[in-house]
């Protein structure tokens, strides 16, 4: 079951002279949860719109289930980044309406709408106009509307933004549940924890270009292994160890600093060097450690590393 769901080949989108998406290629196999990451203005939404055939690429080709998105619209579900609903429509009617636009019969769509609203705790609001719903509830209705026709590929643009922690949990469940039923999910997010928890693979773009495409484990390998230590003692001697690529000062949060005063340090290790050797060296040289940390880098660090300075903007969104 590793059919290719989505195939993007050498896609470029120009707005006048501005290159919003620059020669991007990737493909998504069936049944995976694919994270779509990138700083603001990286071209994520434009790419998603092109996948959905809302926009036409300037160059390149996109195939969803081997065809154009509109030809297979009943197999695709889409939740846009900015959420909104018809204010005067009832919750069930909106879900049913979008489902019929995806090819469901009106009768089935209505039935399905009530079923979904009940399952996700909105039964009492099914017959309310959406203007009477809270923001979070409205968003939930929209999520349900995007998956009501049980699509094989769901594209979610920032599905977690605006949801409280409980509903973020619900959203995660929806995503996991769909993946469990062999559906393919492509979602964009700027919250790395979500991506790290949920994704099988990630696609990272910045400035319209593809930066990384692969599994999370692979993405972490793009960063050199590192050891973080906290000590008041001088550690210059550690830099002499064979295989230590770099010794740099960091602050308590892990960000590099200019002043080399400690007490936080980070050592980047070469491939052949074991972190254990650093620990042994510390003992040998009587460096008193307050903390020794050899955990893998977080996805956030990978992101910052791969995207570079642009990432700062993204992390403050």
């Amino acid at each position, binding site marked *: 079951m590793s059919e290719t769901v989505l195939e993007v080949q050498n896609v470029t989108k120009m707005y006048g002279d501005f290159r919003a998406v620059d020669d991007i290629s990737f493909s998504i196999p069936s049944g995976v949860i694919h994270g779509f990451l990138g700083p603001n203005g990286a071209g994520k939404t434009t790419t998603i*719109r092109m996948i959905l055939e809302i926009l036409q690429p300037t160059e390149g080709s996109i195939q969803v289930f081997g065809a154009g998105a509109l030809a297979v619209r009943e197999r695709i579900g*889409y939740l*846009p980044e*900015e959420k909104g609903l*018809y*204010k*005067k429509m009832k919750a069930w009617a909106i879900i049913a309406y*979008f489902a019929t*636009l995806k090819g469901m019969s009106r009768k089935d769509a209505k039935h399905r709408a009530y079923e979904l609203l009940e399952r996700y705790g909105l039964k009492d609001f099914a017959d309310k106009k959406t203007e009477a719903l809270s923001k979070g509830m409205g968003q939930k209705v*929209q999520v349900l509307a995007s998956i009501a026709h049980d699509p094989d590929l769901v594209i979610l643009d920032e599905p977690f933004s605006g949801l409280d922690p409980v509903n973020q949990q619900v959203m995660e469940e929806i995503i996991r549940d769909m993946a469990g039923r062999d559906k393919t999910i492509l979602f964009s997010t700027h919250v790395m924890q979500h991506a790290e928890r949920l994704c099988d693979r990630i696609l990272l773009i910045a400035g319209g270009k593809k930066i990384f495409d692969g599994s999370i484990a692979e993405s972490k390998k793009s960063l050199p292994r590192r050891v973080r230590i906290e000590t008041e003692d001088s550690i210059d001697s550690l830099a002499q160890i064979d295989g230590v690529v770099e010794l740099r000062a960091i602050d308590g949060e892990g960000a590099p600093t200019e002043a080399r005063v400690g007490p936080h340090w980070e050592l980047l290790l070469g491939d052949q060097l074991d972190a254990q050797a650093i620990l042994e060296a510390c003992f040998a040289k009587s460096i008193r450690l307050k903390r020794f940390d050899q955990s893998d880098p977080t996805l956030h660090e990978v992101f910052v590393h791969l995207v570079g300075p642009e990432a700062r903007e993204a992390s403050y969104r």
Partner: protein
Amino acid sequence: MKYAFLVALREYADNAKTKGFWIGIFLFPIILTISITVPEYLEDATPTRHFVLIDQSGEFVEVIEGGLNKLHLIDVVKDMQKYVAKHAKKPEGQDTKIDLEDVPAIDSMEAKVDEYLRTLETGPMSELGDAELEAMKKQVAPLLEEGAPEFEKPSKKFKLVGVPTEIQEEIDAQTGPDAPVLTDSEKIDLISESLRPYLSGEKKITVDGEETELFAAVLIPKNIQDVIIRPGPKMLAIQDRAGIQFWCTNVADNDLKKEIERVVNKEIRSREYLAENLDSVKVNNIQNTRVPFASLNPRKERGKEEVSLADQIRQWAPVGFVYLLWIGIFTITQMLLNNTIEEKSNRIIEVLLSSVTARELMLGKLLGIAGVGLTMISAWMLSLVVVLTVKSGPESEFAVQLFEVLKTSGLLPKFAVYFLLGYLIYSGIFLAIGSVCNTLKDAQNLMGPVMLIMIIPLMTMMFIPRDPHGVLATVMSWIPIYSPFIMMNRAAADPPMFDLVGTFIMMVVTAAFVLWMTGKIFRTGILRSGQPPRIVEMFRWLKAPK
């Protein structure tokens, strides 16, 4: 197409649920009913109006009373005709009531009244006596169906009443032994001053033991003979106030004023004839000689060319339709604009476009709103027919004639055609505006100039029927955005075939062009956020390939 239909269905349901839609639907028959019923009602319900007459010259009381009797007689005859029309026998073997035009008895009655009025104009007319009324009733009796109620004489519209005591005292003081020395005009001024509170409603007069308002006061000065204006080389400059003064707060009801002016002038003139040694009866007869004068329309069937009420209606009914057309088109195109902007500002548009193409979406919206519009005008037309059917009858000649005109003139199908074409042209424009604006506020900025241009057919709609084939009408007919309105405006006057067919083709082409253009703008504009684009930018979109 299936998806366009789904979009249309939602648009229809969404807009048909709005309050504005239902108000629009119900308001029209209500206004129509009111505008037919109220004049009728007012005519019947106007209470008797009381006025006082202070004639210091003492010469005109009889004359004015005679004039009032004439007004009353006319009312009685009118009511009598309505009464007969309502209760006339049905001709044997027919369901409908007789056509009163064909009944000689009515004609002869009208002629008699006419004659009666004319002969009596030689002197003040006396009040309609019971005997005369009985004679009239007898005349129409054979026309009536069985069980027709008794005819009720309408009450007098204007009634001369005695002067309030306070005023009488004022008058008495002016003529009493210790009266101050005053000129005639000063006397009149004093009287009118004391009448003021009665006329403005602050004080009431008492008539037959009941308090009521004083409608008017007529003041005739003692020296009325001296202020008569005589044309000629020695024409005197005399102020209007020096003559008869008519005091009244109601400026809309002129019947009393006109009648008094007429009878007094008539009296003055007959005195002049006498003074010149002319036989006033002869002069009067000569004044009433006339040639028959018929107003004919060459477009009408041979033998029926007389211009009638129906022709008047035929000429002016299109104005009503232009108004409906305008209201109809702009109500629904406004809906289109609002919905488009709602979808844009909510970004629902993105979800929609992931399911349907921009073309399907646009088509669906156009169809859905067209459905709303057709429902609305169908409801209007239906209520027009229903109200006219109910109201048609002897009480409302207007309703009967209007109904007849609608049935025979082809105005309704023309209305439907111009509505659709106008809708397509304007919906295109509004949809384009909606697609490039993110908020209603942006749209209103663009709408301002558009509205200024669009209001023009409303301003010209009263002038077009006066000269339906004139320069203004012809030129405006060929301006595509005005064409539906102006052609509707001209519809009853049989515009030349060239204009009729030519503008039709032009409107179809315009609609197609506007929709093509809108298609292009819509596709690009609908996803845009931020500032509305500049015009130049929009032109670039037009050139863009798919």
